[in-house]
């Protein structure tokens, strides 16, 4: 069900990520201002974009679950948010490393872009504990979906409010400026963004396939065993039924 096209996606991910890194280190010129350090840009920015889009995708799937009641959408929403959280951790760590090398600080609390991303990350860090705290499966799925829809709507609002803030920032703003990236840098960035997107979709598919297999196995086990002690599902943040 979820595993269709996984092999092709896996091969595509490996090719694209390898190609993107090759472009980063052997094709894209060094930045005139930051030099070799700017290479982090091709990793950090695609990670941030894909993780934020993943959070929004989680909200969209949650809305579809609320409309249709289809548990597969709940599972998709859960996995989208789960994988986005992992990419968000990578975004925060790579950003901190870049900040340390560039500004001399691991973190700047008066920098709206950084703090806004941290708020989004912490908001979604509550998603799994929220799911885990609710034992009833239906309520868990419904409450988590409402959370994902509200938080998913918050992500673009948060992004735009920082973007349009009339304030001088230390954090560079490259996207949206016509002359910000010369041709080879733009090409490298776009390939990196595509690679990260395909990697994200592939990892989501892996997770979905794994979760789906576990759920179906548990259902099969309960049906075969027919024992009451096996009917009770262990408490989990992840969806346990389809």
């Amino acid at each position, binding site marked *: 069900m979820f595993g269709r096209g996984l092999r092709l996606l896996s091969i595509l991910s490996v090719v694209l990520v390898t190609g993107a890194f090759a472009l980063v280190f052997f094709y894209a010129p060094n930045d005139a201002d930051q030099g*070799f350090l700017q290479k982090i840009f091709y990793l950090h920015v695609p990670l941030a974009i894909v993780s934020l889009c993943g959070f929004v995708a989680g909200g969209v799937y949650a809305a579809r679950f609320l409309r249709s009641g289809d548990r597969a959408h709940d599972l998709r929403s859960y996995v989208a948010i789960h994988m986005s959280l992992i990419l968000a951790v*990578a975004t925060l760590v790579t950003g901190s490393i870049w900040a340390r090398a560039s500004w001399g600080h691991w973190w700047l609390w008066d920098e709206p872009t950084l703090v806004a991303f941290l708020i989004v990350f912490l908001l979604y860090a509550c998603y799994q504990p929220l799911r885990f705290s609710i034992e009833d499966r239906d309520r868990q799925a419904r409450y988590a979906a409402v959370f994902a829809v509200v938080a998913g709507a918050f992500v673009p609002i948060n992004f735009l409010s920082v973007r349009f803030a009339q304030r001088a920032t230390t954090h560079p703003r490259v996207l949206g400026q016509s002359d910000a990236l010369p041709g080879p840098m733009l090409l490298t960035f776009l390939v990196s963004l595509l690679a990260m997107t395909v990697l994200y979709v592939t990892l989501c598919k892996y997770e979905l396939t794994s979760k789906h*297999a*576990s759920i179906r*196995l548990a259902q099969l086990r309960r049906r*075969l*065993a027919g024992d009451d002690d096996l009917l009770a599902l262990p408490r989990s943040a992840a969806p346990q039924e389809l």
Partner: protein
Amino acid sequence: MAQLPLGDSGPYVAAAYLVFLALILIYVAIMAAKLVRIERQVTELDELTARRAEERRAEREKVGSA
């Protein structure tokens, strides 16, 4: 191959890319653990169905002999 102009920033760039690589490797390790668990469950199911089939055969034989 031309040497990369690493300078002082080389370790930072390497660290950022290694963090990404480490996260991917950790994820692969977690997926491997999940795969092992699924395999164990499949083995359990296999044993359960074999036991059921054995019980059914024994019952049929008992009914046949009676």
